[in-house]
């Protein structure tokens, strides 16, 4: 019985790893067909990330919002909810943090920076709270409502920037330095990358998710409701309240992700005509990271690394950077078809046993 359980754990860990390998292999095949050298391409990615400080810094920079988005999806998923609205929550978080930084620009840094970060998280929380409430009170499916909330976020942020915070270049003004997460020290360390202090927020968020879910009574409740709403109800838990809470906390993670972009990477927010894509990539990150905080970090690192390293791949091996998106899509495809992979592994290992 124990052996059986161990096998399952090992299997679940194996699936994302195998998926990544298969994704990279398929990517290599595509490169070969088009006539590029896949070895050179992958080599350039690895070399740039690990040997060139600029790309290393940019990879971590790209990880910051991606991991937060992944945590948001994973957290909701642990409670049995599918938060597709991370994208929208991230956008309102972004705008709220930038707006707070500009409006209260006269305040000292010790107040302004935390306030702006909190504003981002709070806006995301509100954007998660609404679909949570709709689900708890009126049984509106969260997938539908969070998708709708994405569009509301997209156009509302654009409207607010255009009418209240407009600056030349279709964007908000730049935030005051006192609210900025950017750092000359980190930039110099990484030869001018946009790496900023936001990674500390990510570390705190990763630990917070783990702590909330596995160490607190609230987290226990959230997980119980996620696994079995019926048994939770019979045990006297308030299922509706937990749904609202889960999507709200999920929104905080997403909102913080937006704040990191606003206060760290860009120092402003542009009027977006389309989604940033970070929120949707967050779904993939959570999926590949098996919805665990540490898994999300690894998956986020992989995707950020591929995206950043893809730029050198283009210059060194001549492979178009779009191919990276194909590889990421393939990895997600393989994770999604985990059933097939599980089946294949089981067959292979059984054959091995019989011999």
């Amino acid at each position: 019985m124990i052996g059986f359980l161990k096998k399952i754990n090992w299997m679940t860990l194996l699936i994302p790893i195998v998926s990544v390998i298969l994704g990279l292999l398929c990517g290599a095949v595509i490169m070969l067909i088009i006539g590029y050298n896949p070895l050179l391409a992958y080599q350039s990615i690895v070399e740039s990330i690990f040997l060139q400080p600029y790309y290393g810094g940019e990879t971590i920079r790209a990880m910051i919002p991606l991991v937060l988005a992944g945590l948001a999806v994973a957290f909701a998923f642990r409670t049995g909810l599918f938060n597709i609205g991370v994208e929208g929550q991230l956008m309102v978080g972004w705008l709220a943090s930038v707006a707070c930084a500009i409006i209260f620009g006269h305040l000292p840094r010790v107040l302004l920076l935390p306030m702006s970060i909190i504003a981002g998280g709070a806006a995301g929380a509100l954007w998660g709270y609404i679909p949570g409430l709709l689900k708890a009170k009126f049984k509106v499916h969260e997938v539908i409502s969070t998708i709708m909330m994405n569009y509301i976020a997209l156009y509302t942020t654009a409207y607010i920037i255009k009418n209240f915070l407009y600056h030349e270049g279709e964007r908000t003004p730049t935030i005051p330095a006192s609210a900025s997460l950017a750092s000359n020290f980190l930039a110099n360390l990484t030869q001018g990358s946009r790496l900023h202090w936001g990674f500390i927020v990510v570390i705190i968020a990763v630990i917070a998710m783990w702590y909330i879910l596995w160490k607190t009574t609230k987290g226990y409740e959230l997980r119980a409701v996620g696994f079995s709403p019926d048994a939770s109800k019979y045990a006297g838990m308030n299922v509706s309240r937990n749904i609202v809470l889960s999507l709200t906390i999920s929104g905080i993670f997403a909102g913080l992700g937006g704040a990191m972009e606003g206060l760290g990477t860009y120092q402003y927010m542009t009027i977006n005509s389309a989604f940033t894509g970070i929120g949707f990539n967050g779904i993939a990150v959570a999926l590949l990271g098996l919805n665990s905080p540490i898994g999300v970090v690894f998956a986020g690192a992989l995707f950020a690394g591929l995206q950043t390293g893809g730029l050198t791949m283009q210059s060194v091996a001549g492979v178009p950077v779009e191919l990276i998106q194909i590889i990421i899509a393939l990895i997600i495809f393989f994770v999604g078809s985990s059933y097939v992979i599980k089946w294949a592994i089981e067959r292979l290992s059984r054959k091995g046993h019989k011999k």
Partner: protein
Amino acid sequence: MSYAIEMRHIRKEFPGIVANDDITLQVEEGEIHALFGENGAGKSTLMNVLFGLYQPDQGEIYVHGKKAVIHDPNDATRLGIGMVHQHFMLIDKFTVAENIVLGKEPKKHGLLDMAKAVKIVKELSEKYGLDVDPNQKVEDITVGMQQRVEILKTLYRGSDILIFDEPTAVLTPLEIQELIVIMKRLVKEGKSIILITHKLKEIFEACDRCTVIRRGKNIDSVAISDTNPSELASMMVGRKVNVQVNDAPYEPKEKVLEVDHLTVLDSRKVNVIKELNLTVHGGEILGIAGVDGNGQTELIEAIAGLRKVKNGRIKINGQDVTNQKTRKIIEAGLGYIPEDRQKHGLVLDFSIGENMVLQTYYKKPYAQLGILQNKVITKKAKQLIQEFDVRTPSEKTLARSLSGGNQQKVIVAREVDRSPELLIAAQPTRGLDIGAIEFIHGKLIDEKKKGKAVLLVSFELDEILRLSDRIAVIYEGNIIDIVNPKETDENELGLLMAGRKKGGNQA
């Protein structure tokens, strides 16, 4: 001598377990043969092999002395093997005759010949004494009648070997008696029957011979006339069985549960509980007997705050808990062993340890200031696992991977350990094997001895009669009588459960 069915040395392996290990089953022509064993012993697997749903890894099947290879249920049907499933496969909106001919309809000029179908069904029904009206809709007939429709389905397809899969689980005592008469009639008309069961009583009332299997292995085949219930029971379990009896003196204390003129609606807004009154005292086990669907589930759910009360009052320990939140009711002193242990009693993907504190996780000592005290929880879980004999590698094991009996022990351990003033046990032993049943019965009796009130709801009359200090019979949402188990028997209870009050009056 040739057998109706002979399965020789059947072996069927699933990943990780051997479900059937060298099992031989010989069913003589014209006998009722019991296939007897605990849950998970391999009875269903064996019958699924016979019915063509599984292919055996080893072994041979002979039907009427001829070797047969059964690839699928169609092969089985062609060979005259018919299965009466535990869960009926009937279409409610169709008539009895339509259901019976479905899939093999009599035709005239390529069109369905309903008149002929009705005639055939009527003839079959009369021949075997089944007393079924072919023109009634299935949704309008009783469960016992529906089962007879299932029997007719197999007869219509020409089966002469009938497999009954736990047929009495859904029946009232009266219907069980009728079923036994029908089975004997079928045998008299030349059919052979395999009865899958884990109930001793049925075997001794209905069967000629019995094959006992345990953990996938053949234990023995015996003629019923040569054995006795306790011998068969110990053959099934593999050791001596101690039957738990409620022998503690009946000394009722103060009222713990008071249900006063309770009216509850079901999901279709129909009154399922009507003006129901019920009192359970400390130091007693009150058994609720009744046929499934007479309001038992709704009554319990209303007490537990899981279903809205329309009218009336519910008090626990004198405290009014009508329409309160479930948590508040639990804190007022309710313990609850739910009917559906996997859906309602456990979070299957939680560890045993986590499941042990499902209602108390937020309280001291399991939590301090909102932080779980995992060490305390683990210690408690280990203690309860030991105390309640939960067979598990560790408290970290997921509840999902436990057997049904051990899952139920986890729930009982959790509920009893909280020491609730009122313990509701709904079907606490359904689907469990004898060992686990006796263990759980013992725990319920212990609660009574401690002076707690126990409300036992069960469809098993044996269980109700054996454990209860008083028996309340529920019928169509009302308690129609309360009887003393020492002064009643299954017959009287059966009549009450069918709505007939003492003296033959309709209630």
